[in-house]
């Protein structure tokens, strides 16, 4: 359907539109007009992605002169593919109506692991080794050697791509990763390099958060994007954590040992070069003396390391004199590694700010702040000079230099924490030195500054006023939308007591109480006998899950549960978890029924959907607070209080509740779906916790469901499931309109639609 939003003709590939999608588009359009950033919360399953895509592409089409380009960031490759598939549909529709005027180029960009088509390279087990495998075949010096000596292997796809040179372009269209690979295979061009090249010309680019937020990657990929681009962060409820992780480094004993090995290897290499090709080292030295940017005169294809700090913070200066020589730089790194080793030996937990830490480095091993800052670039230059291609082996020394550069650059918003052992296992020495970033706004600041519109959207962004404070920006629009439903297809409940009327909670003093464990067990047992197919349970942590499952096993509750449904458990091992999930799905499909035990903040809680019969009920056992004794968290809380005046309790509750909302949100992915959510903890009944849940859950949380005991919950569940099993009318009969056709939209006009809805 085609309709007008103010001055933009929106092309929407479906015949009907949900009213909230329309409202979402209107808000988005206003934000784009105002050239500002916006925060939009809309529940999952309401077609957020297609609303975003169709509005922004239509907006770009309506203003052909402007350079509106869409950078769409997703969290996972799977989401990327889904987004591109929607875009394909939309593109086909636009072509139908506009013909060639709607020609666009849209593509997904991912790592080599997902795009490589060279069978010898892509078979490697992890991302780093695929990258290294690729470099071994495509680095400029390798290719230069191969010209002389045909025995040296190169990648034929890359060679063909290079040969085609400027002819190597993608014709307009929408390319998923799979399409890119197919196209590459057909033309025998390397899809990865082709995609990276085409990103500059594409109208829509779909890639992962890291390409914009992690300065190490963003410097290479995203530096050429125009200011007019619209940046979308989808599923962005954890964006602050992504920002923080991009700037945090942790160093363990293994890292330091690996770094020492790397340094030895480099010394050998330097020695070898001295004997065979001294001129190379000389040339590098001269270049550094001249203070040229390291990458300036190196072939572009070799840019694979970029500075971990943000563009503004890089000094435009020459590399300090005493590390220009390769040997002196290596020996400096040796001293640094030695110093870090010494710090790791400590018996106590230590916490320092970057300033004090740099001071102590300077005092003990004589490396000043400025030198530290250049470590990363200097290493990069050295590795190129030494023609090192197996970059995956040199990850350790890169980590050290990364650390050095960050600690040398930032004086605020970071802290260094050294822990000799894990708090929970004090008997096993596992020293770790962490440089943790506390300020999420640091990493995202350049994005907000460079692009005129940044859209942050997710199903759970509540409370919506906290995000601008955490990320330190001013949105022009921040709105939370609810879902228009034809029937009450979600049923949230707060369970505060067991059948024996004793309170249940995972509060520290209550969690190991056998009464609470038994009550939780009885709750699950009752539920498995009334809920069909799949049930998902979320626990607050792995250790808590282990404990409670053990105790259920001992008391025989687990056995009784198994009579009704099979039990699957998420573990920290990814392969095991994937296998468990697979079998869980199978058990749901064949009617045996299954329960999945999972952990809030785990992999499953973040990325896996339990829609339809895969999740008819989700139980959240306890409130998933972070481990509050963690030093990093404490340091961050302190920083937040000082800098942004966000109270400790507020932040912790906010964080716990968004995790809980995220977990329970897994269960419903579309309007035709239905599911129940049980928040099993007495603390959820308190207003300060409850009010932080997203609006679309709260609006279905009836007052009568706020303080339930197990038997009441079972009764409600029975009623709910019977009601939901009845056939229903998708368009929503007479009263509430939940699907609007083109005529409806024209009839109500833009203004009055909002009133009709809310």
């Amino acid at each position: 359907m085609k309709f007008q939003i103010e001055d933009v003709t929106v092309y929407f590939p479906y015949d009907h539109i949900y009213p909230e999608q329309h409202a979402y588009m209107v808000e988005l359009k206003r934000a784009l007009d105002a050239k500002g950033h916006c925060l939009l919360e809309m529940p999952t399953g309401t077609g957020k992605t297609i609303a975003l895509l169709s509005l922004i592409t239509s907006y770009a089409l309506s203003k052909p002169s402007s350079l509106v380009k869409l950078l769409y960031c997703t969290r996972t490759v799977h989401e990327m593919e889904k987004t591109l598939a929607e875009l394909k549909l939309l593109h086909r529709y636009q072509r139908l109506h506009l013909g060639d005027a709607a020609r666009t180029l849209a593509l997904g960009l991912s790592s080599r692991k997902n795009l490589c088509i060279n069978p010898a390279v892509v078979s490697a087990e992890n991302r780093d080794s695929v990258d290294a495998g690729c470099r071994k075949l495509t680095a400029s010096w390798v290719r230069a050697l191969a010209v002389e000596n045909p025995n040296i292997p190169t990648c034929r796809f890359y060679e063909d791509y290079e040969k085609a040179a400027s002819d190597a372009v993608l014709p307009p269209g929408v390319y998923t990763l799979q399409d890119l690979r197919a196209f590459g295979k057909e033309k025998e061009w390397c899809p990865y390099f082709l995609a990276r090249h085409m990103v500059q010309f594409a109208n829509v680019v779909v890639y992962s958060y890291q390409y914009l937020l992690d300065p190490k990657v963003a410097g290479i990929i995203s530096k050429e994007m125009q200011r007019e681009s619209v940046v979308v962060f989808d599923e962005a409820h954890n964006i602050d954590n992504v920002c923080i992780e991009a700037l945090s480094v942790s160093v363990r004993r293994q890292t330091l040992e690996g770094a020492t090995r790397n340094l030895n290897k480099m010394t050998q290499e330097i020695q070898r070069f001295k004997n065979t090709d001294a001129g190379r080292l000389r040339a590098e030295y001269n270049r550094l003396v001249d203070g040229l940017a390291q990458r300036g005169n190196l072939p572009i294809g070799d840019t694979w390391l970029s500075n971990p700090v943000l563009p503004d913070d890089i000094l435009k200066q020459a590399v300090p004199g005493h590390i220009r020589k390769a040997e002196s730089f290596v020996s400096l790194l040796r001293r640094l590694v030695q110093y870090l080793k010494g710090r790791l030996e400590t018996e106590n937990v230590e916490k320092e700010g970057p300033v004090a830490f740099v001071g102590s480095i300077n005092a003990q091993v004589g490396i000043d702040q400025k030198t530290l800052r250049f470590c990363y670039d200097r290493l990069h230059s050295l590795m190129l000079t030494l023609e090192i291609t197996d970059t995956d082996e040199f990850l350790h020394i890169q980590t050290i230099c990364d650390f050095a550069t960050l600690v040398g650059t930032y004086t605020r918003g970071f802290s260094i924490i050294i822990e000799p052992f894990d708090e929970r296992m004090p008997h096993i020495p596992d020293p770790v030195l962490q440089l943790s970033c506390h300020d999420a706004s640091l990493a995202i600041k350049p994005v907000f500054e460079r692009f005129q519109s940044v859209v942050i959207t997710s199903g759970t962004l509540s409370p919506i006023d906290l995000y601008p404070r955490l990320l330190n920006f001013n949105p022009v629009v921040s709105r939370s939308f609810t879902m228009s439903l034809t029937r009450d297809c979600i049923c949230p409940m707060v369970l505060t007591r067991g059948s024996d009327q004793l309170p249940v909670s995972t509060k520290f003093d209550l969690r190991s109480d056998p009464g609470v464990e038994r009550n939780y067990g009885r709750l699950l047992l009752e539920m498995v006998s009334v809920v069909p197919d799949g049930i998902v349970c979320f626990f607050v942590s792995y250790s808590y899950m282990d404990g409670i499952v053990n105790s259920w096993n001992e008391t025989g509750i687990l056995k009784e549960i198994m009579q009704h449904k099979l039990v699957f458990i998420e573990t920290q091992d990814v392969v095991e978890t994937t296998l468990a999930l697979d079998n869980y799905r199978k058990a749901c499909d064949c009617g045996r029924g299954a329960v999945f035990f999972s952990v809030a903040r785990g992999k499953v809680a973040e990325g896996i959907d339990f829609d339809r019969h895969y999740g008819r009920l989700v139980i959240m056992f306890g409130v998933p607070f972070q481990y509050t004794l963690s030093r990093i968290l404490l340091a961050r809380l302190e920083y937040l209080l000082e800098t942004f005046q966000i109270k400790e309790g507020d932040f912790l509750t906010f964080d716990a509740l968004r995790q809980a909302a995220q977990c329970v949100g897994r269960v419903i992915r579309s309007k035709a779906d239905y599911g129940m959510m049980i928040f099993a903890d007495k603390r959820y009944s308190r207003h300060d916790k409850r009010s932080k849940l997203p609006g679309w859950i709260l609006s279905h949380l009836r007052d009568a469901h706020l303080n339930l005991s197990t038997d009441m919950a079972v009764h409600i569940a029975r009623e709910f499931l019977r009601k939901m099993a009845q056939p229903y009318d998708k368009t929503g009969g007479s009263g509430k309109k939940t699907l609007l056709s083109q005529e409806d939209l024209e009839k109500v006009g833009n203004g009055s639609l909002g009133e009709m809805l809310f």
Partner: protein
Amino acid sequence: PLKDFCILIAGVMNHIEHNYGKGKRLNREDNEEDDDEEEDERDLEAWERAYADERSWESLQEDESGLLRPIDNKALHHAQYRKRLRALSSTAAAARIQKGLIRYLFLVIDLSRAAGEMDFRPSRMVLVAKQVEAFIREFFDQNPLSQIGLVTIKDGIAQCLTDLGGSPESHIKALLGKLDCSGDSSIQNALDLVHDYLNQIPSYGHREVLILYSALTTCDPGDIMETIQKCKKSKIRCSVIGLSAEVFICRHLCQETGGSYSVALDESHLKELVLEHAPPPPAIAEFAIANLIKMGFPQRAAEGVISICSCHKEAKFGGGYTCPRCKTRICELPTECRICGLTLVSSPHLARSYHHLFPIAPFDNVPPSHMSGTHHRLPNNCFGCQQSLLNPGKIH
């Protein structure tokens, strides 16, 4: 305060109007509103629902002299009945849907652990048995040419309670004797068993399975998807009525085999759902080839003759029928002759079955005032039963 008062009054008015509306509704011909009321009932609280079935207070009416008298519900029910008839005939008239008249239906009753649950009173199992009894009678009433078999699932095993047969009494007796529940339930086992039986049915017969399912899981020995495909291939139409919640595999089964899936809300809804399966469903397209079937129309045997019947293998005195081909004595119709295998029916059976294909056109409603008019010379009494049409219930 004045504003509050106004709202209060408005509230009262609403209330009055509401009550008034209810009173009036009783006399209305169309019962659209009644459907709404039924929906309302489903939203009631649990304790209210217990009384909802007999709303004895609502069927009272004050007459002109101030006495309370029970309302005559017959008029209302009659109106509903007529509406249903009209709906039926209009769909039938709009499209001549071919229907399977000779049905071979297996009723699968889940007697697993879940059937013992007491969310239906007194228990799911007892209630199901009650509905099945009603269903079997209704089924044979509407489909005299069809046959039913009973299968129960208990302890993960499917057991054939009665073979396909045409006698309602024997089925009901067999079921009521076997009512106890235990163990898990297995749809696959049941389907396998039923499939083996139904696969031997001649091609003109319509194969159907109706599963009354209490459990929420199925513990199967193998891959149930294969079994479902097998049923689909053999054109067995599987329908499921669930007693507690929607189970994916049941929905899948029904979708694949063209059956219907429904879940009962309460006792009356369950009854409705079960009885929905009594009229024959539209025939599956591939099945709808015209077939000639050989049938015998036995004559009633002469009174006072003693002969050995083939069904009970006993000497019987009087009554009974004689097979026109092999002259065996049979106790009841319709059936298949034990000796020569001929299908034996009586012509009223055939006629009754045909009603599904060619329903009787609905009668025109004539208000009593018209009847007394002179130019419509309508009789005052029904020609069949001699009841007075002017004031029903009295014979003139």
